[in-house]
């Protein structure tokens, strides 16, 4: 099989070839490394490449498969990690110049689990500094560029994780999501991004931003690939205080229903939060997606939700206070070495009184209960993932239907709500704007409802072709 064809294959097909010994993990890894060589100068998805380690892992996987020791769907499959997951012996910068030379002496839980699955890590991926920005800008490592238009942002903070999947530099990547940092780059790059229920994947060894809002999740070519990643990554970890004790399950179960998997699902369309602040091209793609879900037998109708702007405000106060608590020493002693916008964002948290933080937590808990009440009336909620498509790299503000807002608002205002309340959410490609920029459809479920969420997203995906399109890069 030609090198370029290997990088087009979804995880299940690639792993089937490896299991049957029709393709070697070394061959696959070399194909991906060539692809990175070709595309990286235009995209900047990686902070640190790991070619030598990747080839060593691939050779080990090859030997194991030949000996009959095939481990499963990620054995010998090239993956990428956001550069805040600690990797033993490989620098982990968290997108910061301060940590440019930081080399951990142990792996994060995500790196451990991928190692146990036999995956081949090809590199540490671009991110915005300390994961505190929804753009793909980074003053220390340069911007990550959107494969659909390299003059545009890839979204953040897991910027390289979105770019690498879209540009076929890795078969699958992992990011973190505190306000939308998996789903936003997934939407802007035209790939699938899953933020599981809070605590489902261990955060041990991942640089924290907000301990009560940080989530770990995969970015992938398809919902099926995301389900396979969840199988590999989910599970209790006593080293993460928020880690859930959930019995192991196969998250691919139910996906065999294909396009029939959405039939009978009650889909609540989030309407109370900002059609006036949504780009017309994004809205049109979203409405077409709702039509498609109805065609598949889902009952999609408007849903009454609590005041989502308040959820956002509570999430912002909580996230910023926690970020300030975590990174106070960094901003006070080495703030001048940071991106100044991110420095200020963290420092603003030092001015949040303790009682205001605690009140925000109570408001957040109350609004979460109200959202769960909404999810008694419907099975899942649906919205666009972002209100805008990928902004230009030099763009700071955007005018939507006559109203000018900062691009952060356009990128994060919808996703941030569901990070604040810890509900599982997935973004799948649902179309393109007139400028041929991808648009994401966000589906949100009850806690631990990933099987339903994945089944409905998969039904939508197999009945459309948006996820099968690749940028010409």
């Amino acid at each position, binding site marked *: 099989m030609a090198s370029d064809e290997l990088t087009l294959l979804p995880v299940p097909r690639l792993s089937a070839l490896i299991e049957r010994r029709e393709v070697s993990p070394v061959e696959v890894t070399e194909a991906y490394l060539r692809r990175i060589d070709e595309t990286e100068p235009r995209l900047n998805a990686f902070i640190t490449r790991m070619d030598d380690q990747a080839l060593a892992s691939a050779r080990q996987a090859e030997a194991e498969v030949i000996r009959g020791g095939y481990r499963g769907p990620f054995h010998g499959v090239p993956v990428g990690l956001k550069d805040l997951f600690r990797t033993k012996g490989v620098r982990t910068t968290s997108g910061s110049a301060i940590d440019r030379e930081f080399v951990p002496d142990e792996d994060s839980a995500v790196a451990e689990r991928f190692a146990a699955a036999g995956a081949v890590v090809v590199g540490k991926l671009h991110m915005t500094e300390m994961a505190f920005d929804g753009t793909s800008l980074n003053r220390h490592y340069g911007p990550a560029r959107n494969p659909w238009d390299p003059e545009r942002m890839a979204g953040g903070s897991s910027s390289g994780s979105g770019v690498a999947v879209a540009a076929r530099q890795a078969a699958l990547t992992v990011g973190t999501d505190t306000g939308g940092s998996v789903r936003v780059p997934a939407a802007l790059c035209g790939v699938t991004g899953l933020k599981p229920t809070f605590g489902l994947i261990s955060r041990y060894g991942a640089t924290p931003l907000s301990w009560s809002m940080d989530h770990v999740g995969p970015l992938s070519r398809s919902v099926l690939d995301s389900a396979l990643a969840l199988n590999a990554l989910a599970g209790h970890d006593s080293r993460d205080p928020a880690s859930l004790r959930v019995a192991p399950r196969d998250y691919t179960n139910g996906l065999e229903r294909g396009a029939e998997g959405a039939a009978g699902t009650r889909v609540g369309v989030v309407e109370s939060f900002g059609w006036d602040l949504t780009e017309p091209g994004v809205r049109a793609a979203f409405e077409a997606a709702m039509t498609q879900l109805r065609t598949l037998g889902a009952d999609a109708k408007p849903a009454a939700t609590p005041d989502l702007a308040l959820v956002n*405000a509570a999430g912002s106060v909580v996230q910023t206070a926690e970020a300030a608590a975590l990174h106070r020493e960094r901003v006070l002693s080495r703030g001048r070495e940071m991106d100044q916008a991110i420095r200020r964002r963290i420092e603003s948290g030092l001015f949040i009184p303790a009682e205001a933080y605690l009140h925000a937590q109570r408001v957040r808990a109350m609004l979460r209960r109200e959202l769960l009440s909404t999810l008694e009336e419907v099975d899942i909620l649906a919205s666009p993932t972002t209100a805008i498509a990928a902004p230009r790299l030099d763009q700071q503000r955007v005018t939507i239907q006559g109203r000018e807002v900062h691009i952060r608002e356009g990128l994060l205002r919808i996703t941030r709500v569901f990070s604040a309340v810890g509900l599982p959410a997935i973004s799948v490609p649902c179309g393109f704007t007139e400028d041929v920029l991808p648009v994401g459809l966000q589906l949100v479920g009850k806690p631990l409802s990933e099987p339903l969420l994945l089944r409905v997203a998969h039904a939508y995906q197999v009945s459309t072709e948006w996820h099968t399109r690749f940028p010409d890069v």
Partner: protein
Amino acid sequence: MADRPALTYEEFVALAMLYGLDMDEEHLRELFPEVEAMHDRIAALEAVDAGEVPPGSGLSPWDASEPQ
């Protein structure tokens, strides 16, 4: 609930010194609007009666009563 008074620039500078921030004038001028915006969010939340939520809960998105 009593309204939270707006933070003046002078009060902000005094707090910044207390908290050990870099007192560079340009930095403080750029930081102040961020702090004001945060205080606006705090003020918006103060208008919400969260009395139904027991103190001490809500420190994570999980309610202890929910199945895990």
